[in-house]
């Protein structure tokens, strides 16, 4: 075994990640080679310095509390839809890891549908408020928000600022409904945030409905489905719906 080969394996050797026969050959080389021994000893010293002195950041106390309270709110919002919308997930056939799943989320036809959709929309709304993640792009300028989505989605959502009408645009983000990426536009009215979810495809409209303290209205136009969710009062939310419907193609 030559010096180059030892240099290449000195880290897995230090980390005890080598097969026993490789370990034996490295040890044999180290016994007879001062240069490699020096390299090895220095690296070993450095690793122990890192282990002893690199800072381990422990979670602040309030974090566990926030997480517990987030979970209870989320569980409450998601309760009735779980068997429907997530049934396929429990079957696990397509499940490799959470990471690959999250990476592979993409905008696919058709958009979310099925019995659990309303619950899912409300859960997405609650989540955006809880995780302090209302917007990925924060801007009241529709010419900033609209281009932000291009390149992330293969659709271009209609984006209109309604400041003059009393519903200023706050920004936008990507959200996930039924494991598909959808557009979420955020508006505000008298300090009440409104999530306007948009995805391609037509679906039967639902009249305004109230669940868990939130109001929701859903409709389709121009080949897109829109759903507005907010704790705003029903009259104002319907007012908002009319304004969006008028401005969208």
């Amino acid at each position, binding site marked *: 075994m030559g010096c180059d080969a030892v240099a290449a394996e000195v880290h897995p050797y230090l980390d005890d*990640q080598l097969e026993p026969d490789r370990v034996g050959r490295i040890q044999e080389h180290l016994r007879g080679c001062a240069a490699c021994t020096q390299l090895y000893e220095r690296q070993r010293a450095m690793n122990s310095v890192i282990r002893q002195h690199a800072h381990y950041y422990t979670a602040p106390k309030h974090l566990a509390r926030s997480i517990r309270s987030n979970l209870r709110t989320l569980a409450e919002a998601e309760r009735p839809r779980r068997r429907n919308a997530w049934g396929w997930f429990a079957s696990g056939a397509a499940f490799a890891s959470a990471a690959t799943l999250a990476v592979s989320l993409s905008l696919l036809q058709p958009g979310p549908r099925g019995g659990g959709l309303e619950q899912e929309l409300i859960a997405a709304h609650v989540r955006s408020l809880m995780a302090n993640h209302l917007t990925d792009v924060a801007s009241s300028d529709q010419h900033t928000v609209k281009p932000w989505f291009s390149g992330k989605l293969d659709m271009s959502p209609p984006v209109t600022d309604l400041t003059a009408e009393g519903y200023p645009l706050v920004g936008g983000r990507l959200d996930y409904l039924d494991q598909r990426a959808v557009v979420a536009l955020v508006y505000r009215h008298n300090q009440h945030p409104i999530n306007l979810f948009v995805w391609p495809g037509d679906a039967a409209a639902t009249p305004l409905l109230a669940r868990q303290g939130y109001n929701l209205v859903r409709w389709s136009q121009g080949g897109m489905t829109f759903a507005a969710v907010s704790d705003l009062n029903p009259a104002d939310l319907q007012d908002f719906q009319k304004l969006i419907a008028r401005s969208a193609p």
Partner: protein
Amino acid sequence: MTEQARVRRFEQLAVPHLDAAYNLARWLTRNDADADDVVQEAFLRAFRFLDGFRGGSERAWLLTIVRHTCYSWLQQNRPAEVVAGYDLEAGDLDAASLDPSFRPPLAGPDPEIALLHQADEDLLNEMIAELPPQFREVVILRELEDLSYKEIAEIAAIPIGTVMSRLARARKALQRAWARRRTEEARHGV
């Protein structure tokens, strides 16, 4: 399973690894408040993915989600940091060669090792924080979480060989920079 039971199951599974989650997020975002946000979001995601957890290491499963959430966050908020990391893949963090400052076999103990051991925590932590995130994370997962190469490969979604080479490059870079700083300080009598 009722929702309450799901929440309890998730808490039993995930909360014991909250420190590991926070430590990784804090090292990747390099900021307390951002780490806080990212961990909260990651735990919500993990809760939604709970039915997909097939056993194995809970910590590795959770760290996979935390790491992914961190990178989404970085890409959104500080895209330059993530991209810059790839430039170093084959560049100046190269560790696959012997130390060019090689000296003849030593009679006594290597003086550099004594210097290495004079710890300066702030300097060390700064140096680690300055590594590109793709290198920083393997150092943190290996040295602070004591994970195997295989576990790190799964969490970071890279081959084991890449774990090995990134870890080697990162440590080598740290060791050289550390030794250089310690030597300078010793020379100037700091």
